[in-house]
């Protein structure tokens, strides 16, 4: 059963179209990685799942269903109930999402309610130091704050955890441990995860499926290893090829050429077309419809033509390491 289902969602800010018809499904117990270029609308999609967008955001089209309920149509109390029952969020900027006037222990205690074991939950994110409980957010390092935010989101054992770059500020070791923790807890509890991240290897390793966003749309989705190891969309391929971790010392990496689009209305054609080495005439004018390539859903006019060619362009075999 589909726990989160985003269908053709269009979100506009004052002068930007952040989502331009995004589709995404997360089923019960599934872990989905959401990757994509900075500014492609990942955070917007994540927030939209809980109807947490700022007031200037307008939903143009589409709908979001969480546990079968249309999030954007729910009355306030039902919505609140839904968030509480089904959703857990870790926001992109963890330290800012902590109340600066409350000690960490108190904040966590507030989420847990009476009788909650604060130190147990902090321990799960490897914050065993008793000092942390009594610290204020500004007294924590960036990584510690992020772990606190994760602990708070996990504390209520939500059905779906939406984590926006939850490990970005963590060092590799802690990142591993925290990720392990989150994913194993999720597996135990049957929690689904929507994991917004830039860390492609980690996504490839941990997530069942991955969705790649570009220009406000999910341009490719499918089993994680498949998508990242054998991309069907030119953007996915380009992304996967530019990880700095992949480069040997002294080698100069090349980013995807060109700049990401800033949409103000619906894209006329494929948003990636200007940067795409395979673009054709129709890519500029015709919005691509989803096609199924192998196990992947792809938004590309030429997906079928390119099958096979993209994998060879991979310059980063370590992606799946």
């Amino acid at each position, binding site marked *: 059963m589909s726990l989160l289902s985003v269908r053709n969602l269009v979100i506009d800010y004052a002068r930007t179209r952040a989502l331009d018809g995004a589709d995404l499904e997360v089923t019960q117990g599934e872990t989905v990685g959401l990757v994509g270029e900075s500014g492609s609308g990942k955070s917007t999609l994540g927030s939209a799942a809980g109807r947490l967008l*700022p*007031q200037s955001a307008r939903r143009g089209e589409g709908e979001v269903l969480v546990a079968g309920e249309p999030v954007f149509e729910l009355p306030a109390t039902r919505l609140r109930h839904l968030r509480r029952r089904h959703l857990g969020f870790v926001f992109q900027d963890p330290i800012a999402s902590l109340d600066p006037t409350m000690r960490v222990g108190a904040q966590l205690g507030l989420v847990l309610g009476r009788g909650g074991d604060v130190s147990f939950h902090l321990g799960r994110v490897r914050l065993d130091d008793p000092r942390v409980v009594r610290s204020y957010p500004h007294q924590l390092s960036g990584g510690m704050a992020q772990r606190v935010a994760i602990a708070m989101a996990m504390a209520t054992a939500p059905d779906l955890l939406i984590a926006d770059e939850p490990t970005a500020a963590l060092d590799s070791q802690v990142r591993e441990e925290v990720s392990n923790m989150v994913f194993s807890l999720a597996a135990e509890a049957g929690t689904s995860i929507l994991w917004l991240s830039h860390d492609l290897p980690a996504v490839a390793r941990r997530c069942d499926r991955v969705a790649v966003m570009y220009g406000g749309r999910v341009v490719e989705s499918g089993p994680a290893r498949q998508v990242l190891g054998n991309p069907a969309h030119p953007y996915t391929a380009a992304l996967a090829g530019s990880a700095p971790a992949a480069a040997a010392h002294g080698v100069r990496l090349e980013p995807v050429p060109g700049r990401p689009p800033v949409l103000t209305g619906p894209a006329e054609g494929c948003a990636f077309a200007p940067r795409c080495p395979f673009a054709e005439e129709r890519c500029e004018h015709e919005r691509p419809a989803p096609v199924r390539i192998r196990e992947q859903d792809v938004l590309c006019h030429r997906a079928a033509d390119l099958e096979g060619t993209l994998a060879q362009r991979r310059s980063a075999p370590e992606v799946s390491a």
Partner: protein
Amino acid sequence: MRKLDRLSIGGLACLLILVLFALGSLFGIGGDPDAIVGPRLQPPGPGWWLGTDNLGRSVLPRVMEGVGTTLLLSSIAVLVTAALSATFGIVAGYRGGYLNELVMRLVEVLYSFPAIVLAILVAAVLGPGQFAALASIVLVTIPLMTRLVRAAAVAVAQRDYVTSAVISGARLPRVLGRHVLPNVAGTIAVQGTYALSVGIAVEGGLSFLGFGVQPPQASLGVLIQQGGTYMIAAPWLILGPGVVLVVAILAINVVGDGLRDRLEPRETRSLT
């Protein structure tokens, strides 16, 4: 930056009308505010559209004159207060340490003097009149604003963008002016409109004591003080200036809030 909301625009329009109203009195529209034109305490009627006061003067030109006096006096006073409080509050809040202590103690000293004592002293030094009233309003309103601005500045001073500016080598005036001030401007706007109300009240009180605007010049404070004593016997005496005052302060407050919201580019979030 967002546009002013409809309520604030309404407030702005009201203020504009009041200013026109006051300007009208400069050109003698409405009549001579000091001339005795009819019997005392007459209800509104032809010749005195807002009635006559206890000396038989027409209330209308007096209200028009009063609006001008009061708006001018209080807004100058509030501007002075805002400028001084902003400077002291921001510097004290940002710098901390001894400077902070010094400013806060000074403010405390000012606070300890009841407004009336301050007013009498100021009037003693400057001689009674508008200038004394102005100085008194400033002295009465400065402490609160300074404290609040300081509190806001302390919070802002710890933000990373201030740190970034400092790293860039920005001079103090720049850090304070470009980073701290805009982020405490909301507080100043809100407290400024509040100070304006206090100012008008203080002005009225001072005139009542005899230290403010000197008779026969009219100010809203004076008119309302007088109207207050005749509230039941001659309600039109308070009605005219009262309505104008309420409209003025309401408008100022609403505009102040609007301004505050406008100064905040971020969107507030609804709690649902």
